[in-house]
């Protein structure tokens, strides 16, 4: 429990540091928001007036804290280009991206764990050899390309979904989930093949451990040894990998959203970057950072629950 609390406090400090870096970075980027809002033909008086109104003349740190406290209250600022609250712009996009990330994660776990166990148990078997080859191919494919492949195979050839025919979750939840399945698969497959490889390797090295011999000496079946003894030990590096993969998934979804024409966070992020709409960009970056940090914290906590030796060292 103390371990979890410590992790949460560390995470909160990290969030503050991240927001500071994000804010300062966007202040270092050249470009005056007042000019980009009023255009280059605006008079200096009007520009100055707008700068005053937007508090752009205050020192950076004061503006940072003003922004941070607004952020903590849930006020993400106002978009430069659309003149509406950033939260109104992105709130209904978060569920879209989050659904895709969660789905991709679940697919990754569901694909990798049974295959990892199977291939380690039947090393050199047909499935093992096929998977080793598939791994090499799929691992070297970036998510956007697997997205194109999946669109082609499932959308064009098998006609299981209409490419580009995104349905909103508010109008047709089932259709939404069905459509989201394919981009999720596109993100999950490369990660899943890596996880299979990792779990296989991890399990294979566990086979030589002394405690496995002890487990056999008690009269366990091979499945008993794998599920009751080895899996909990072998899963440790896989948990770390799955945590890293989940943060990759969140970041990778930005690109896959483009391939599948999904109006999620990624699309707004890209358009806001090209519009120099910094409040939106900063808000999305902070949200993605928070997601990543929460995932990392959960991985640490799960790790300590699976491996009793971890929290022991902290006592």
């Amino acid at each position, binding site marked *: 429990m103390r371990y979890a609390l410590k992790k949460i406090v560390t995470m909160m400090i990290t969030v503050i540091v991240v927001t500071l870096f994000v804010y300062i970075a966007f202040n270092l980027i050249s470009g005056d928001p007042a000019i980009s809002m009023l255009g280059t033909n605006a008079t200096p008086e009007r520009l100055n007036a707008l700068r005053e109104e937007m508090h752009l003349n205050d020192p950076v740190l004061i503006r940072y804290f003003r922004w941070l406290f607004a952020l903590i209250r849930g006020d993400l600022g106002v978009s430069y280009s659309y003149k509406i609250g950033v939260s109104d712009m992105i709130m209904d996009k978060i569920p879209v991206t989050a659904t895709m990330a969660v789905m991709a994660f679940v697919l990754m776990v569901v694909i990798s764990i049974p295959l990892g166990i199977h291939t380690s148990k039947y090393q050199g078997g047909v499935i093992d050899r096929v998977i080793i080859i598939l791994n090499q191919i799929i691992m070297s494919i970036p998510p956007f390309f697997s997205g194109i492949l999946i669109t082609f195979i499932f959308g064009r050839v098998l006609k299981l979904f209409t490419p580009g025919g995104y349905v909103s979750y508010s109008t047709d939840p089932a259709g939404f989930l069905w459509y989201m399945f394919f981009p999720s698969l596109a993100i999950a497959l490369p990660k899943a093949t890596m996880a299979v490889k990792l779990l296989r390797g991890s399990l294979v090295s566990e086979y030589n451990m002394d405690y496995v*011999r002890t487990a*056999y000496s*008690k*009269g366990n079946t091979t499945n008993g040894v794998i599920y009751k003894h080895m899996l*909990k030990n072998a899963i440790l590096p896989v948990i770390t990998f799955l945590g890293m993969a989940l943060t990759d998934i969140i970041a990778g979804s930005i690109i896959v959203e483009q391939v599948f024409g999904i109006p999620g966070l990624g699309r707004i992020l890209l358009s806001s970057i090209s519009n120099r709409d910094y409040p939106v960009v900063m808000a999305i970056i902070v949200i993605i950072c928070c997601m990543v940090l929460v995932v990392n914290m959960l991985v640490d906590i799960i790790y300590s629950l699976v491996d*009793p030796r971890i929290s022991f060292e902290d006592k």
Partner: protein
Amino acid sequence: MENGVLLEVTDLNIEFHDHIIPETVVYDFDLTLREGEIVGLVGESGSGKSMSALAIAGLLSRKDMKKRGQIYYDGKDLLSISRNELRSIQGNDISMIFQEPLTSLNPVKKIYDQVEEPLRIHTELDKEQRYEKVLKILKEVELDDPEHVMKQYPHELSGGMRQRVMIATAMIMEPKILIADEPTTALDVTIQSQIVKLLKKLNAQRKTAILFISHDLSLVNSLCERVLVMKDGYIVESGPTKQVFNDPKEEYTKKLIAAIPKIDMTKVYRNE
């Protein structure tokens, strides 16, 4: 079997086929183990003593390995019976403890679960009955505060306590045969003598036959009634411990005995 013979190993040969030229690690191993006796198996590293022990315990199942000969237990040849039949004997009638108690215990499972496991595999006892049994055996192996120990993980225990837990796990089904593969090598000397005393006690109380494997001759001398000496995969000498020690026939045995440090450890161990 007649006159209390529990286990009869005849002509056991173990060959590795993981290289182009097969390598034999155990030649014509013979062993007879009677009820309640302690037999020592000594030899240097690589002499094949652990391999023979693992074969008897049914733990050599690598595909690149050939085993010939017979291991008779309870009228069955352990080398030719099915995996399922073998499993019903493993941990139940024949159990084994190992050299390194830390790595031999599963690092992520609580002591209670590990000691209890043979009961789950071999019996239909309910939860309370299993708990009672685990508590009883932990007390029997002289662990202090067994209620606390069973909630701990292996890394939280000392080396001696871990080996006691291993012994408890091996003894919980009250096996006929306990194979102890260098159980004290990884422990310091005072703990060694405690573990040896514990094995002696269990042997006396429960009539469990023990095959005690060691390279420590003075330990074998103090514990075992009979002894087998192995070298390069062959049994070079066997017989009652006293006879082998006082009147060794083989040059190799003589050298082994000459290598024992002059401090008479047998007095230390027998001093009870």
